[in-house]
């Protein structure tokens, strides 16, 4: 598989027009995460109410893989309970690292399958999810 195959169209589309990006004025939680080796950064904010991720927004500076992952992640998780989101995080991580099946609720993120062939880029795909993990630990 070549690098070009990793950049599936759906990834490029999300990277160029990311969903749910921007500030979240009424956020209950915000976290900042960086990949120190490459400088990619994300500020992920959430409105958590009664254990539900009512809304997620982020501001990020990063490559197509990290941006697309943040875009697809927020799109899939908004409205989920924190417990369900934690299960999604586990599923996505196992999908990338252990090559296991992705939870059907994360269908679109299957486009990141190609990243598994490029170990250096797995951290790009995981950046937003690591931010999510911090959010889930709070409150």
């Amino acid at each position, binding site marked *: 598989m*070549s690098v070009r195959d*990793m*950049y599936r169209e759906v990834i490029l589309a999300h*990277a160029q027009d990311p969903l749910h990006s921007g500030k979240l004025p009424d956020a209950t939680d915000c976290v900042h995460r960086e990949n120190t080796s490459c*400088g*990619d950064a994300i500020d992920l904010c959430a409105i958590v109410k009664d254990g539900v991720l009512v809304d997620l927004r982020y501001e990020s500076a990063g*490559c*197509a893989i990290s941006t697309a992952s943040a875009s697809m992640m927020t799109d899939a998780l908004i409205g989920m309970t924190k417990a369900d989101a934690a299960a999604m995080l586990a599923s996505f991580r196992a999908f990338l690292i252990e090559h296991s099946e992705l939870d059907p609720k994360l269908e679109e993120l299957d486009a990141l399958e190609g990243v598994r062939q490029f170990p250096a880029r797995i951290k*790009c795909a995981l950046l937003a999810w690591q931010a999510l993990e911090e959010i889930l630990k709070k409150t």
Partner: protein
Amino acid sequence: MRDVRRDFPILSRTVHGKPLVYLDNAATSQKPTAVIDALDRYYRETNANVHRGLHTLSEAATAAYEDARRKVARFVHAARPEEIVFVRNTTEGLNLVAHGWARKFLKAGDVVLLTEMEHHSNIVPWHILRDQIGITLRFLRVNDDGTLDLSDLDAALEGVKLVSFMHASNVLGTINPVRQIADAAHAVGAKVLVDGAQGVLQMPVDVGALGCDWYAFSGHKLCAPTGIGALWGRYELLEAMDPFLGGGDMIESVRLEGSTWAEPPARFEAGTPAISEAIGLGAAVDYLCSIGMAEIQAEDATLTAYALEKLPQVPGLRLLGSAPQRGPVFAFTLAGIHPHDLSALLDEDGIAIRAGHHCAQPLGRRFGVPASARASLAFYNVPEEIDALVTALMGAREMFANVRS
């Protein structure tokens, strides 16, 4: 200049089925056969510890190690070989001055003047020292064209005890006016430390003519192995400095109550040094001298002019820095494509470039770009490789642009 490409075995390999186009020379240079052979020969014929044994091999290894020091001294026009301290790399050289000189002679409130374009290795040691002894840090700003803002140098130098800055930028390509800054610094009694990591392969270096007090550089950016570099310092300054690491080889005499230190450079070379690497550095310097640093500088100028003509032809490409005095280092952004993606795509075409913050985050902030792509050339690159880069950039652009439609 003669055809030097055949001197570098790695340049004939392919990457993903394409000829390697190595444009990451600011990160590390490739190694000529002369250097690879010197390492091979050393381990096959001479390997022994230095400055210790009285047997044939140890004497030969010691002679070769000290011969390398003489070669490096001549290469930078040091007054004497003892002014060359072997270190691991530029970073260690800079840290050695911070620990051995600045920690000893500076006190709370003394000002160290740095610049906004510095590599992290010339910022972080000073942050550490500031937190330990309370020195004050001040930074010269960078103009939009990538030159240093020297408009009010005299004011910037007020209260300054040490100025530390890079000879050539690893991002902007800018070659800084070392002599001008050094003279102004000396006029107020400040010492001058120069980070020569990028400068040393780009031009002949004469530390006396530059007018600095220390000059640090890495071997691996100079066609030599990794793990070896040098700190040149004026001998009387080295003599005044405290050691950085304690151990074997750096002492005069050790008793249980205390030790006395050896003279420089041994004082700063505790423990078994990087012997083969130092010999490799000597071989690299011999190799470069056989071509001529003036010829290398002229070749760099030709490549730089060609790149500055071709790169702006790529739509959406923004070069960082346009200093008139510059080396063949080109950091840029390409609209719509993150540098990491660009680097990954170019690798597919056999082209090696760097992407990221280039260990100069404050400079990236200054130009509003957290990450950039960087193509950096050396004298063994050819104009056709710049053409290959431009073609690949166009291809990447098309691939990302097609998604919108």
